[in-house]
């Protein structure tokens, strides 16, 4: 349900001043939120905001965070399309964190599918009201009035009025119910589906764009915080004397530690407050701190990995079960098994966590690069012990997010420090802080087994996964994955196999675990897509042919019938957009579609020189379907290069094809990093990597020639930011097998294993 109210009209009725323009607020109905059923009233709040002033300037609020996906451009573009306005007349402004915008948590690749409908409706509603206002002005039937590019035109007389001239009258009109709003026909879309430059492009290339780290307030102090190197540790004692002797250092204060699980709250530590960032960092190096390292001080990656791998060998909690896997395995013509491993990963987004906060008279203003302004508000209010309404959340551009900036711990640090210091404070993490105190992508060990029949067809599939859960960062004693986590490539496994059992083994956590671009799809797609390739090899069949066989006939999957025990939230669509949830089944036909297109476009099957090969992987995530063919070359020294990648996405209706292309290109690079370089290891509870010098991410030298293709259809939009990541790494590893005959079952790839 979507309810629209004319805010300016309401304000008029209340006698408020803001009556000079048409202001439309609108709000997505969320089934579970109390205001969903309310037509108007104090709890009714819009989730995005459109205004047209009398000069004709159209202002559209971007309520979702811009971290590089283009969403700040693309959702306003959808509204502008339906509004029938010249994009050059539109000013896009970033909204503050405010419940009136509804859900602002920019993650899960869901902004477009969640807001495409509401944005269209908002634009169309405004367009219709402007037409009505024109009809009233001219005293003609509204059916003779048509909105065109910022004007309403009366065709019979040739008269026209600009939106700005109609704004005042339109502001007094009742808002038509959504049932009476005419959306444009697809064929009449002027912006949706066409490439469009992002609104911040010029500012970015001229160095004028404002990220969190660029915010400066008068009288602002700069802080650098030393945190315990071990998760769960705390300060025993500290001596600030030497730090205070550094020029520019003004104060040294303690941020209290949050006991584990620390959730969104600060880790705690000793903060050096100075007149500039450098002095704060210098002072910090002179701190003398004695730590109580806490229970994780003995945690080492190597034995922990062995523990997870041992768990994966044993039966776990059954989360999907149909047919009789044990019987089918016992009677198999051929039995295949393999174990896969993916380490912890760090986000390493280019802009480190940072925030500015200003505590004034029991209220707090914040400026931060955050994916989740709602959570900033809540967490800052919690740590300060004030009402959420007394926290102002300003959202800047984000220098990358990838899930790290869904967690507002760094904003809460700034808020606490501002209160302690009595001045605005900017907290800037160092890169070392970022790498060593991240919310890490979960380490994961998996065991797979399959039974093949005489013809090489898969008759049984057993998949065990063991990983620390994200929920363990927030709740004590969580050792199993949630339905959402297991629904990222385990229980939603789409292959048409008669006997399937999926299990989840228990794993304790020893670091903060968090969302990282495509999340648990990373290990699960790596294992599932690699194992499919192993089965093809065992069956002696071409991998593309074999995947077609595995995917089976076009159909949508009924997970209940397929024995899925856990909740399957389907990337949140059931909860966040119940009205359209039935449009997003797991569709084997769409998987087949992307597979066929990538095979057709990638020279699949053409001969390559020795030590070169192609690999394929296909995976559904975030409601979208992606297939990737990687062409790799493996040097005699074992180094892997990737001359070419072909990627196909079916993400339904595309708003901005250039940004979809960019997201796929970028996802490929990130996945190359996951496959070939990135690796977080832990010794005595301490992260062993510290910066880009030892936490490796891809650079331009490994960049393939990436070709992106779309499956064009009329389905509703689905996720774009993340789905390119999961299948790329296994496609690369399958290509390595094709090139060398060696299977990669642990990431990152060890070149030593691939030497000629």
């Amino acid at each position: 349900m979507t309810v629209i109210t004319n805010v300016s009209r309401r304000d008029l009725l209340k006698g408020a001043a803001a009556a000079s323009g048409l202001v439309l607020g609108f709000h997505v109905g969320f089934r579970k939120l109390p205001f969903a059923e309310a037509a108007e009233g104090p709890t009714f709040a819009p989730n995005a905001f459109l205004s047209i002033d009398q000069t004709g300037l159209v202002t559209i609020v971007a309520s979702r965070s811009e971290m590089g996906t283009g969403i700040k451009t693309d959702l306003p573009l959808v509204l502008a399309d339906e509004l029938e306005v010249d994009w050059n007349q539109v000013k896009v402004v970033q909204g503050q964190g405010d419940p009136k915008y509804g859900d602002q948590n920019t993650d899960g690749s869901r902004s477009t599918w969640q807001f495409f409908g509401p944005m269209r409706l908002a634009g169309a509603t405004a367009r219709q009201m402007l037409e009505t206002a024109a009809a009233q002005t001219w005293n003609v039937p509204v059916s003779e009035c048509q909105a065109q590019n910022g004007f309403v035109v009366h065709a019979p007389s040739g008269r026209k009025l600009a939106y700005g001239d109609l704004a005042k009258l339109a502001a007094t009109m009742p808002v038509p119910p959504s049932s009476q709003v005419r959306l444009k026909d697809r064929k009449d879309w002027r912006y949706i589906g066409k490439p469009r430059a992002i609104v911040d492009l010029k500012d970015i290339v001229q160095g004028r764009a404002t990220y969190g780290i660029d915010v400066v307030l008068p009288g602002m102090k700069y802080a650098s915080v030393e945190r315990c190197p071990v998760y769960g540790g705390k300060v025993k004692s500290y001596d600030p004397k030497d730090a205070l002797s550094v020029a520019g250092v003004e104060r040294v204060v303690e941020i209290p530690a949050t006991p584990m699980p620390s959730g969104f709250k600060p880790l705690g530590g000793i903060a050096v407050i100075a007149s500039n960032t450098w002095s704060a960092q210098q002072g910090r190096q002179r701190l003398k701190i004695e730590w109580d390292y806490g229970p994780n001080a003995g945690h080492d990656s190597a034995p922990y990995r062995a523990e997870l791998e041992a768990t994966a060998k044993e039966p776990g909690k059954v989360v999907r079960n149909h047919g009789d896997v044990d019987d089918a395995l016992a009677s198999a013509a051929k039995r295949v098994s393999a174990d896969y491993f993916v380490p912890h990963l760090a986000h390493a987004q280019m802009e480190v966590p940072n925030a500015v906060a200003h505590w004034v008279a029991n209220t707090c203003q914040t400026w931060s690069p955050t994916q989740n302004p709602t959570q900033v508000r809540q967490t800052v209010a919690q740590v300060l012990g004030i009402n959420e309404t007394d926290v102002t959340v300003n959202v800047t551009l984000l220098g990358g997010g990838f899930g790290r900036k869904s967690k507002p711990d760094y904003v809460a640090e700034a808020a606490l420090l501002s209160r302690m210091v009595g001045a605005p404070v900017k907290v800037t993490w160092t890169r070392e802080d970022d790498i060593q105190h991240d919310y890490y992508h979960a380490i994961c060990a998996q065991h797979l087994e399959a039974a093949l029949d005489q013809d090489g067809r898969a008759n049984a599939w057993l998949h065990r996964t063991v990983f620390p859960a994200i929920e363990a960062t927030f709740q004590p004693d969580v050792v199993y994955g949630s339905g959402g986590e297991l629904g990222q490539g385990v229980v939603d496994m789409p292959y048409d196999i008669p006997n399937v059992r999926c299990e989840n083994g228990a794993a304790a956590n020893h670091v903060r675990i968090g969302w990282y671009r495509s999340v648990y799809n990373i290990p699960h797609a790596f294992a599932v897509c690699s194992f499919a390739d192993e089965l093809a090899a065992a069956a002696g069949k071409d991998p593309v042919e074999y995947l077609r066989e595995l995917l089976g006939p076009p159909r949508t999957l009924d997970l209940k019938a397929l024995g899925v025990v856990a909740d399957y939230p389907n990337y949140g669509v059931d909860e966040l957009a119940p009205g359209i949830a039935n449009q997003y089944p797991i569709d084997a036909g769409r998987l087949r579609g992307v597979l066929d297109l990538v095979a057709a476009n990638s020279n699949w099957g053409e001969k390559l020189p020795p030590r070169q090969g192609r690999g394929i992987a296909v995976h559904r995530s975030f409601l979208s379907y992606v297939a990737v063919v990687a062409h790799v070359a493996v040097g005699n020294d074992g180094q892997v290069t990737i001359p070419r990648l072909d990627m196909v996405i079916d993400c339904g209706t595309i708003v901005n094809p250039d940004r979809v292309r960019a997201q796929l290109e970028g996802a490929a690079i990130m996945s190359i990093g996951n496959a070939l370089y990135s690796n977080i290891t832990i010794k005595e509870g301490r992260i062993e990597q510290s910066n880009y010098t030892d936490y490796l991410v891809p650079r331009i030298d490994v960049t393939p020639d990436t070709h992106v293709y779309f499956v064009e259809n009329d389905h509703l939009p689905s996720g774009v930011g993340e789905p390119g990541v999961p299948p790329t790494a296994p496609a690369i590893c399958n290509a390595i097998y094709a090139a060398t005959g060696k299977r990669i079952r642990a990431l990152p790839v060890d070149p030593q294993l691939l030497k000629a």
Partner: protein
Amino acid sequence: MSQIKINGVEHTIDADPQMPLLWAIRDIVGLTGTKFGCGVGACGACTIHLDGQAVRSCLTTLADAQGHEIVTIEGLSADGTHPVQLAWEANNVPQCGYCQAGQIMQAAALIKQTPKPTDQQIVDAMSGNICRCGTYQRIRQAIKSAAEAV
């Protein structure tokens, strides 16, 4: 006191001469287009020009910079019309955009020194600049198109 000329303007900076130019530019001079990424010269986000050469401002001290011409992204062109900036726009290079000032400064120095760079020269010049969004393919394209425009 350090006397530093940035984008043609002399600045008198009262700070430790060992302070990296990056922090002096950002926190004291107030030009925030130059970005902090790693602090150890490993990512290129803080790249500026020192006498026309691309250098990492996180490793260049105020003392090092004294007496040299410093140019930041704000001073690369008056109005964003440097051929590299135009090429970045035409190719829609940026995603989050955070690293792009450093990428552009690095690419501008490359084009100045090597007006028609080969693919390998592009890789060699740009491998010190990380883009975590993964815009490298477009960076490559943009440098080639800027080179053609020069």
